[in-house]
């Protein structure tokens, strides 16, 4: 599973960790994140992420 980097603030989405504060369980691949998921640091949308 690939990590993805937010192009706006530099936050790295690590699928092993998920994003529990936004209800995303550890082990969730980036591709499976809901389309309305946003970067927990800066609010950027999935479109603003690139593969690390």
């Amino acid at each position, binding site marked *: 599973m690939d990590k993805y980097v937010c192009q706006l*603030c530099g936050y790295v989405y690590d699928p092993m960790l998920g994003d529990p504060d936004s209800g995303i369980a550890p082990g969730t691949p980036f591709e499976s994140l809901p389309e309305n998921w946003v970067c927990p640091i800066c609010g950027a949308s999935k479109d603003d992420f690139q593969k690390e």
Partner: protein
Amino acid sequence: MTFAIKNNISWVGKIDWELRKFHGEEYSTHHGSSYNSYLIRDEKTVLIDTVWGKFSNEFVENLQKEVNLDQIDFIIINHAESDHSGSLPELMRHIPDTPIYCTSSGIDIINGHYHKDWNFNPVKTGDKLNLGSKDIVFIEAKMLHWPDSMMSYLTKDNILFSNDAFGQHLASELMYNDLVDQCELFREAIKYYANILTPFSSLVDKKIREVLALNVPVDMICPSHGVLWRKDPLQIVTKYAQWASGQAENQITVAYDSMWEGTRHMAEAIVQGISKEDPSVGVKLFNIARSDKNDLITEIFRSKAILIGSPTINNGILSSVAAILEEIKGLRFKNKKAAAFGCYGWSGESVRIISERLTESGFSLLNAGLKEKWSPGSEAIEHCLRFGQEVALQVKGP
């Protein structure tokens, strides 16, 4: 100095007339700036933002002339950067238990700066603070331009306290957009956008659409720097939407540095070639080392294409050129074209290095660049003229 904006709303900030550099030495402020703080008196009294810490004594003394500090019921910190939160320690020394409303990220940042156990109340988009006859509605604006940034909207008076968004570094006793020199105002507004907000343009676009979709009346926009937008306040929102779209003006900026004038001669010939091919395109020429960095960034922001020139030194490029390329990379410009040029004596790496950095920074290269050996003679100048003409043709498009 304080003044009434409307009903029971007062400006209680600080005009910084002598400021010439902001963010340390990072941002030039030819016209000074102001740190805008606002006091709203309804059944409850609320203070929105403070001013830079170096003015904290003046700020608190000034505020005391306007209101008994014990009567302040709430403090809103729209953004925790030092120029807006810096007077909190002095203010809180007088009123240590007053609740502070900010985003959860704002709490982290304030704690990270001042390390005090204040009465924090985190807020999110849509949360309301009732002042009696009116409400404050909070709108988060993450990364516009820090993770904690937010705006506060005052109902009934229809005022958006936008913090750094829509601000300008402009000191003026006149304090309203319709009273100041319009050229100065918009020059400072675009400079602010270009130098601070460019990397977050996709968020700016999204946020503007979100705020407009709320369909609430906006009679005034009160930013945290510069003058207040009261005449046609949405004009600056329209400008931001245009700037965020990445649509450039019909302009090409040529910027270079030079040691023994060779690269300067190249730059001047390139500019002539551009103008000859397309007299309608605005073309601007700057010596990077001798120009104000932030003004140059603003010209790059306005341009469809940029040409960057450096001679080769020690198998590399001049440090002034490296510095502006670093700045350009961080600002993540979109939809811009670029090319490199420069003269050299023996190794000649500068054009390749500049081209690589421009590519890394998201610019699409117009060509492989132009390098000329030693000081350009008439044949080399002819190459430069042609280079300029070709660039102008490509930028103009079919």
